[in-house]
């Protein structure tokens, strides 16, 4: 097999981009799981919802409102869409998820699964399935010559932005007082409550934050992938495997695993492209044999 160093570097770079999305999504899952003990099956649908919101803002909202020229650009959407998705998530947490905390975690999982079905089905009903195009902002259009490859500016932006977000989230959770509360909430919510912290509100906000992370990833993905109701569901299966490999308990772990798996997937695409999706699951099986708790996980 002849692969030039150039091609190798190019594929590695592309793998890194994929890894950024895995990292952002699995971090959100890990944060939610940490405090709520729920695997958020709605994550993919919320990712999709944000991408759709961005698209609606750019192309639809003007005509809807009767001002065809009015549009919400990418930068505004990058802030607003995750916020809306986050608030929507918090509403679900308040009205539906909250009722299930005293039960087996299975019920929370099934509930989020049902919500995901409704969301995907609803978007499919309204917008069809072929999907919608979304243009990156003008300043990020066109490629940059990296020497070994031409890389679209937008993709460079995605890597930088998502690494910043991941690092910021990690810092928030591991290095600030708020993060300390959150971690304490994971360990012993009742004790935390007795210190005068409003734990239920904290839970709601955490869920909203985790979901908003998925929202940011969704808006970032809109110009790369076609915006379709199924874009999140397809991704989520892989992210679940990422989370199992990394161990659900660790924010840093899920981030590192996400990035690493993106790179591995990128390499697989060069060597044996047929297996590039399944390689994640094979690694998961191997990781379980070696370290059942996940590479960065704690046994629960």
């Amino acid at each position, binding site marked *: 097999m002849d692969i030039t160093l150039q091609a190798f570097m190019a594929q590695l770079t592309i793998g890194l981009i994929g890894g950024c999305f895995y990292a952002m999504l699995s971090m959100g899952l890990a944060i939610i799981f940490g405090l709520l003990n729920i695997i958020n099956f709605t994550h993919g649908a919320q990712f999709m919802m944000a991408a759709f919101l961005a698209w609606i803002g750019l192309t639809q909202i003007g005509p809807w409102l009767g001002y065809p020229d009015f549009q919400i650009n990418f930068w505004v959407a990058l802030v607003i869409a995750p916020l809306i998705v986050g608030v929507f998530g918090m509403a679900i947490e308040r009205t539906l998820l909250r009722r299930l905390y005293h039960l087996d975690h299975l019920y929370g999982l099934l*509930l989020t699964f049902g919500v995901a079905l409704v969301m995907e089905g609803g978007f499919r009903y309204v917008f069809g399935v072929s999907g919608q195009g979304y243009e990156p902002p003008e300043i990020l259009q066109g490629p940059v010559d990296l020497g070994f490859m031409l890389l679209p500016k937008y993709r460079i932006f995605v890597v930088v932005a998502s690494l910043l977000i991941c690092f910021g989230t990690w810092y928030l959770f591991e290095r600030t007082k708020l993060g300390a509360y959150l971690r304490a909430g994971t360990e012993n919510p009742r004790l935390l409550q007795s210190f005068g912290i409003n734990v239920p509100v904290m839970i709601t906000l955490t869920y909203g934050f985790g979901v908003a992370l998925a929202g940011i990833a969704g808006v970032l993905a809109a110009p790369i992938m076609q915006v379709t109701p199924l874009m999140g569901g397809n991704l989520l299966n892989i992210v679940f495997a990422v989370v199992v490999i990394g161990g659900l308990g660790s924010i840093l772990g899920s981030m590192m695993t996400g990035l690493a798996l993106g790179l591995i997937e990128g390499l697989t695409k060069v060597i044996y492209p047929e297996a590039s999706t399944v390689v994640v699951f094979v690694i998961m099986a191997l990781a379980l044999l070696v370290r059942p708790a996940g590479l960065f996980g704690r046994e629960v």
Partner: protein
Amino acid sequence: MSTTFKIFLVLCAALLVVPFVPGLIYPVFVMKVLCYGLFACAFNLLLGFTGLVSFAHAAFLGSAGYVTGALMIRFGGHPLGMPAAFLAGVAAAALVGFAIGGLAIRRKGIYFAMITLALSQIVYFLAVQFRWTGGEDGLQGIPRGSLFGLDLSTDTTMYYVTLGLFAVGFLFVDRIVHSPFGQILQAVRDNEARATSLGYDTDRFKLIAFVLSAGVAGYAGALKALVFQLVSLNDVSLHTSTEVVLMTLLGGVGTIFGPLVGAALVVGLQNYLATIGDLVTVVIGLIFIVCVSFFRRGFVGEFLHLRRRRSERAVRRKALRPAPETSPAAEPA
């Protein structure tokens, strides 16, 4: 004779008449319900009686279907072809169950579920890749062959054979649940630490339960392959795995008849929604939400619960006749 058995006999007797009144209930529809009912029973054996959540059950249903189907296409003409292919399918499902279960029981709770989900993706991938599974075309036109000289190609004969095989499978599950082994499984479900302290190797019991459940799911899958004469990727997809969760939940987790009721409801709903189209996913999703939020006992569970409460109230009324009843009793967990 237990109540379960009596109800079961009545049910079977009612089902015996179905082919005579095709205008009332369509026999092929009943066969589909029976296959999925058994599939849901297999799932319930794990979820309801062992407390394990699996998202890999489609992998068992499908792999048995593929093996049975592929063998029937090659050896269907042989007089022993059908029973051999059927058993081979069940064995294949149990084997896949052993592989997936062996890995998954290394973790507990939600992790267990996630691992089964991820591993079932590998099975799906293999089904797409292998040549003998027909890729996305699936296996079509699988011959039904003959059972002990009985030609199965007509729907009516197949109906009675399906009913018979269903009865065997159902009673097998019922037997497991009520055996000493089943009691241990329920002990593991209720309190694993206590079961361990009593000297039971809980991992071993969980694995056996997993393999048994996979085997029964495979039994349903092999039967389904023969009834519909086709196997497709849908049978190994995550979608089917979640459908069986819905069936079990809707009917009643941990009840003997719940999965059957749930299967009948979901299959009927699919048929009904097919002509409405468009919003199938939304409706199924809403049912999930309603079921999980307000209706966790399922139909059968709710029925049993009401009956139990009524009889308890009657007992109490008898005991406390002079005193007026104040409030209904808190339900036992």
